[in-house]
């Protein structure tokens, strides 16, 4: 590439590989250090080592990781092994590490396709270097407020990133009034996806609607009217004053035929046909992830049947509905990190027809957000008052906070136990011969996943990747 120094490139790639190799020899799953060492030698190394690739970037508050694994899976089923990063490494350093490690020493990429999960705040640094074919924005909810300030600020960060790549196609969730506003005044091609009015109950007014993250029109401040809600502020919104409304979609879920703990059967309306599709992951938010993945594939112009046929086979990704069996007890791990995602997971638990054990792990480390007050915005009442929930464990640095939340949600105090140590926790939670649902937040998921993974013979995550 013009303007890039081959010597710098060589040292950057070598430094990255060496650091990564060193970490693996030391059995540490380091994900950002190799990227940092590469950046030390060449600040724009990412532009060199991604040159000429076809890349889909996924950003947004919820669903990034699952949407990425659906896309990755579709490519793999079709015989292509794409480059992709992992959830803990979705900032500039982590993404740089992935690309640099898979380049030749002269800086040529060894792969042609990439699926990149990108943090909302990092988008503006990453996309001008990798020139993605498509950027998917899944949705915007409150998340880790102490790190980004407010949801509007996050939206502006994404808008800045999008503004730097006018040739990229935007694939936007039409049901999210915040997300779809990214199309306003930009030259980019826009591809809209969503869940259509006939797919959900027209009378569906989400009970958490009072806590909407976007109640007022982003253009003029008037309260939106809704034809229907899917969940939280997502749905058929329209502003009675300025006319801003849910855009006409390029593809949408036209009906939801069956939802079960194993997955969902849906019908998707394309511009030229309707297709019945199975999504192998449960709950409504995975229907959103599925339609986002199909949208991204369509927007990229890749082969439709690859994605539509692979969605039924998509495996749960790291800590997101991942399942384990320990001493004949099934454990399902569901990452929760904000009220919107947490409410969906709590609804999933309370939809169980049999007895179960619930485990809540809450840490307040930097990667989680130091502010854990969002637990009071999530409806723990759904599980606290569920008669099928026979036992509750709490753990993590802020276990006492989650226990207090459960008390005020109405949980029977006699069924709650606080267990700090993860090994003890694994033994205790599987001692009831009941299925276990563990809902950790990010860093508590990493440590619980390590213990459960080791005990059940599942690999450490970074070893899974290559």
């Amino acid at each position, binding site marked *: 590439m013009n303007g890039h120094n081959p010597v710098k490139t060589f040292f950057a790639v070598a430094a990255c590989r060496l650091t990564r190799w060193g970490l693996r020899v030391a059995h540490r799953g380091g994900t950002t250090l190799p990227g940092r060492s590469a950046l030390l030698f060449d600040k724009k190394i990412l532009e060199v080592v991604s040159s000429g690739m076809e890349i889909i970037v996924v950003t947004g508050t919820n669903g990034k990781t699952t949407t990425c694994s659906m896309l990755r899976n579709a490519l793999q089923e079709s015989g292509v092994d794409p480059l992709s990063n992992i959830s803990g490494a979705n900032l500039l350093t982590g993404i740089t590490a992935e690309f640099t490690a898979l380049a030749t020493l002269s800086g040529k990429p060894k792969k042609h396709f990439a699926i990149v999960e990108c943090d909302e705040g990092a988008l503006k640094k990453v996309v001008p270097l990798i020139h993605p074919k498509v950027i998917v924005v899944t949705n915007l909810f409150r998340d880790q407020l*102490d790190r980004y300030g407010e949801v509007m600020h996050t939206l502006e960060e994404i808008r800045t990133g999008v503004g730097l790549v006018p040739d990229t196609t935007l694939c936007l969730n039409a049901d999210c009034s915040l997300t779809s506003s990214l199309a306003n005044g930009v030259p980019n091609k826009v591809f809209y996806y969503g869940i259509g009015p006939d797919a959900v109950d027209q009378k569906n007014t989400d009970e958490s609607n009072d806590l909407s993250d976007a109640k007022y029109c982003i253009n003029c401040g008037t309260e939106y009217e809704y034809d229907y809600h899917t969940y939280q502020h997502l749905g058929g919104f329209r502003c009675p004053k300025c006319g801003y409304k849910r855009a006409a979609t390029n593809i949408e879920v036209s009906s939801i035929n069956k939802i079960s703990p194993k997955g969902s059967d849906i019908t998707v309306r394309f511009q030229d046909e309707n297709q019945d599709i199975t999504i192998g992951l449960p709950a409504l938010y995975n229907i959103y992830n599925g339609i986002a993945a199909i949208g991204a594939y369509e927007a990229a112009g890749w082969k439709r049947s690859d994605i539509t046929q692979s969605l039924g086979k998509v495996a749960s990704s790291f800590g997101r509905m991942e399942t384990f069996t320990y001493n004949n007890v099934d454990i399902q791990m569901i990452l929760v990190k904000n009220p919107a995602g947490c409410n969906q997971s709590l609804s999933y638990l309370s939809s169980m027809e049999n007895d179960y054990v619930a485990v809540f792990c809450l840490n*307040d480390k930097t990667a989680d957000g130091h*502010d854990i007050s969002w637990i009071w915005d999530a409806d723990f009442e759904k599980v606290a008052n569920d008669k099928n929930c026979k036992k509750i464990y709490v753990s993590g640095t802020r276990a006492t906070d989650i226990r207090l939340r459960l008390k005020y949600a109405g949980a029977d105090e006699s069924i709650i136990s606080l267990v700090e140590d993860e090994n003890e926790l694994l033994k205790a939670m599987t001692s009831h011969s009941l299925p276990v649902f563990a809902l950790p937040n990010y860093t508590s998921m990493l440590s619980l996943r390590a213990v459960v993974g080791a005990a059940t013979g599942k690999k450490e995550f970074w070893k899974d990747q290559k």
Partner: protein
Amino acid sequence: MSDRKLKIAHLYPEVLNLYGDRGNILCLKKRLEWRGIDCEVTEVKLGDNQSLSDFDIFFIGGGQDFEQEVLLNDLRSGKGDSIRSAVEGGKVFLCICGGYQMMGHYYQTKEGEKLPFLGVVDYHTIGGDVRMIGNYAFRLPTESGGSDVVGFENHSGRTYLGEGVKPLGTVLAGYGNNGEDKTEGVRYKNLFGSYSHGPILPKNPAFADHLIKTALKERYGSDELESLPDTYENEAHDYVLDKVLRGDMSGD
């Protein structure tokens, strides 16, 4: 004593609901219920013009900047005056973050623009570049119960109290009103203002009960209140207090 009842007004729940604020309402409700005291919570939203004179406790939370304009218009349309007379009449107010700032005279943005607020109490807020974020703790004076309060603050506005205006407490660790003078929040009549969300009440049961007692005394002349088993509350409180006093302001 089961014939007692308190009426709570949740002001602007549809716009001021950040950072778990609704946990404060839930906390008051449960702590009243557990003592057999009836409790009625009314949401007072934008455009609602009902009388505010029969409520005992008012709660107003924090919001996003974008939404504050919508709110200021509603306050100017008359609700502001009702709020002012409720405060002067000794009603209990718990005002958090944006709701706290709003009871002062004005908010001056970084660019120098002055947004006029209610001016119920003599203080003002100035926008800054530094965001004051983190777990923190402050000590209440005896007149507010004397307990140590823990919470989480997240504000870039620095609040300065007018001459003779009493703070809610003295900062033990963290920033408080402005990061300079060790004051946190405001106490005026029975209005309690604070930057602490988290939410503030569940982890600070002594402060929650102080609000309840103040409201009971206003309505019934007696603040008799039985104690509750607060093990979970106190353990969550002590964990944060211990952490911030050690100087561990983050979670790493």
